[in-house]
């Protein structure tokens, strides 16, 4: 940043009469206090603080209390709610709010590419809630794209969130994120193709499975699992630990052991037999198992990865208070149960298990949906990466996966 930029900012600061943060500028901009051209200038020249940051976000005020609006825009991933969308109906019955539920997120990176310009200018494109994975949620926080909850208006969310998810590294008090669903990353394998039940990440490197192994394009899943296997805790690992894991993966790509990297394309590769032992997600495993008894899921001895897709309220959301209320609303076990029964990922809401057990005992007993606390002890949450670390690890990993 050049000195003249600093001067300009100081000038702004003086004009506004209070300490300047990027978020505040954007909020004012959204309210029309700054001209569009000044905003564009700021967006173009970047921000004042090099590291972005949680500390800056912490001084932000929480969403003010207000009236519950009659409309709400909820951006989520496809097939991530029961087909009846009962939770939305119940919310409408109670508050009269019509929820516009849009399945517009297919991929964290693509979603980010799509909303970046809008969020950067302090408008949310009409969205009140979006759902993104941990690391993207952290990026949104760091960029000041999301609003802080007023937890005092969210009693259910405070009381019913399961213990393991209460303080992730990137948002220790859950002030900017609330889990929609969580899942585990582990090993999915074909029982009829493997010599023995895989126990460790090492099994993926068995020469007998050469060319039948795939890993995930999600850096934190693949690197996390390999890092844990190499003996470092992905929750605290150093940059070198991650790089060491990436080197190992590179080695296995070069030797032809690893066939490729996938999103959930393995849903078709595994049944076809194009892959046998892979890194994959627990919710998919539940569904694959139901269709094909030869497929099973296991957490490696060194631990699986625990990830969460989080609800966030973007800056500029037209119905922020309603969004907050809605998030709290689905933290009631009765509201959560139909969602959980349909999507089979890990339920973040305490008490849902009991509600579901009344209807479907086997579902409630499934450890991949309602894991016991000890089961979850054997999982890691990838630690928050600083921007420059993130860039280095992303860069190295992208090179390994071919781009």
């Amino acid at each position, binding site marked *: *940043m050049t000195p003249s930029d600093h001067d300009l900012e100081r000038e702004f600061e003086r004009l506004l009469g209070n300490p300047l943060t990027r978020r505040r500028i954007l909020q004012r901009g959204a309210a029309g206090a700054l001209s569009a051209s000044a905003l564009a200038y700021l967006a173009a020249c970047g921000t004042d603080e090099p590291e*972005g940051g949680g500390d800056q976000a912490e001084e932000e005020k929480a969403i003010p209390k207000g009236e519950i609006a009659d409309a709400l825009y909820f951006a989520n991933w496809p097939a991530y709610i029961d087909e009846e969308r009962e939770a939305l109906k119940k919310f409408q019955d109670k508050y009269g709010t019509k929820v516009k539920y849009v399945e517009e997120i297919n991929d964290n990176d693509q979603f980010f590419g799509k909303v970046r310009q809008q969020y950067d200018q302090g408008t949310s494109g009409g969205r009140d809630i979006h759902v993104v994975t941990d690391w993207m949620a952290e990026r949104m926080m760091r*960029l000041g794209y999301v609003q802080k909850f007023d937890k005092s208006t969210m009693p259910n969310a405070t009381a019913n969130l399961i213990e393991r998810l209460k303080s992730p590294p990137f948002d220790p008090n859950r002030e900017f994120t609330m889990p929609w669903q969580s899942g585990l990353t582990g090993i999915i394998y074909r029982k009829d193709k493997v010599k023995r039940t895989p126990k460790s990440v090492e099994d993926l490197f068995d020469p007998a499975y050469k*060319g039948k192994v795939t890993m995930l394009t999600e850096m934190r899943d693949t690197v996390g699992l390999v890092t844990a296997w190499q003996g470092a805790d992905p929750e605290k690992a150093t940059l070198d630990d991650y790089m060491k894991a990436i080197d190992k993966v590179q080695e296995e790509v070069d030797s032809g052991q690893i*066939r490729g990297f996938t999103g959930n394309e393995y849903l078709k590769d595994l049944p076809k037999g*194009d892959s046998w032992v892979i890194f994959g997600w627990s919710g998919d495993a539940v569904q694959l198992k139901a269709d094909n008894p030869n497929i099973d899921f296991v957490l490696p001895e060194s631990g699986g990865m625990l990830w969460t897709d989080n609800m966030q309220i973007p800056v500029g959301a037209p119905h922020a208070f309603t969004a907050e209320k809605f998030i709290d609303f689905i933290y009631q076990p009765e509201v959560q149960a139909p969602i959980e029964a349909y999507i089979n990922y890990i339920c973040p809401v305490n008490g849902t298990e009991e509600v579901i057990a009344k209807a479907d005992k086997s579902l409630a007993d499934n450890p991949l949906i309602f894991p016991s606390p000890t089961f979850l002890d054997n999982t890691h949450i990838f630690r928050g990466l600083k921007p420059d670390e993130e860039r280095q690890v992303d860069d190295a990993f992208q090179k390994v996966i071919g*781009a």
Partner: protein
Amino acid sequence: MPVRLRKAALPYFLLLPGLGWLLLFFAVPLVYMALESLKTGTIYTGFQLTWEFSNYTNALKDYGEQFIRSFEYAGLATLISLLIGYPLAYVIAFRGGRWRNALLLLVIVPFFVTYLIRTLSWETILSDSGIVVSTLKSIGIVSEDGRLLDTTVSVVAGITYNFLPFMILPLYASLERIDSRLLEAGYDLYGRRRDVFLRVTLPLSMPGVVAGVLLTFIPAAGDFINAQLLGTPNQFMIGNVIQSRYLVVTDYPTAAALSFLLMAFSLIIVIVWARIAGTEALLGTEEERA
């Protein structure tokens, strides 16, 4: 306004929509991308225009391999398309008779299915335990522990398949236009079939060959779907890199620089190709245009 002036202005008015379109969707993004490619920064600090020309040299250094691979695959696919497409277009044009339109329709029919689905179906066709691979294994073309899917073969085959109609259609158009009296004249002058083909048919169909090669090669070089679905990281092309740089790493400057490099290389290849094949073949002779 006098009538004559209005008349003189008319062509320009007619050009307006096209020019506007070019300006809005080509020129402006191009300038934007050019500026983007010379910036430095991250999404957290913002991107500043620092005229960072090293973005280009670094991009080339880091991804030279994928560039070369892209042009190799695109070249290979273009060549195969030409070898498959020419005889096909020839037969439809000269021997198609009343089936001509039906045959042409068959060439286009795959286009009614989206690109993605067509490529995905190749995944199934070439699957390790699929019928193609097991047949090829039994006659010894593919080794016992070999595979087709996720290899160079499958990626090049996918590109060839997806762009083949772009080769066939211009070939057909130029072959179909050939005046049959010229061929008769060739035979009357005691030309053998081979001579007539090489001296009459082929030269007259060159505009189709040139157009077909360009229409196949250029999009094939920038393709990333085939490499992504039918290949592994070892087959990834420059399109895959640009996609990952832009969307995943959010390294917009490098992505923009790579796009420009791809464009520049493609342009160079087109110019060289036009020199070899002759601009007449590309643009038609003066006579034809008149």
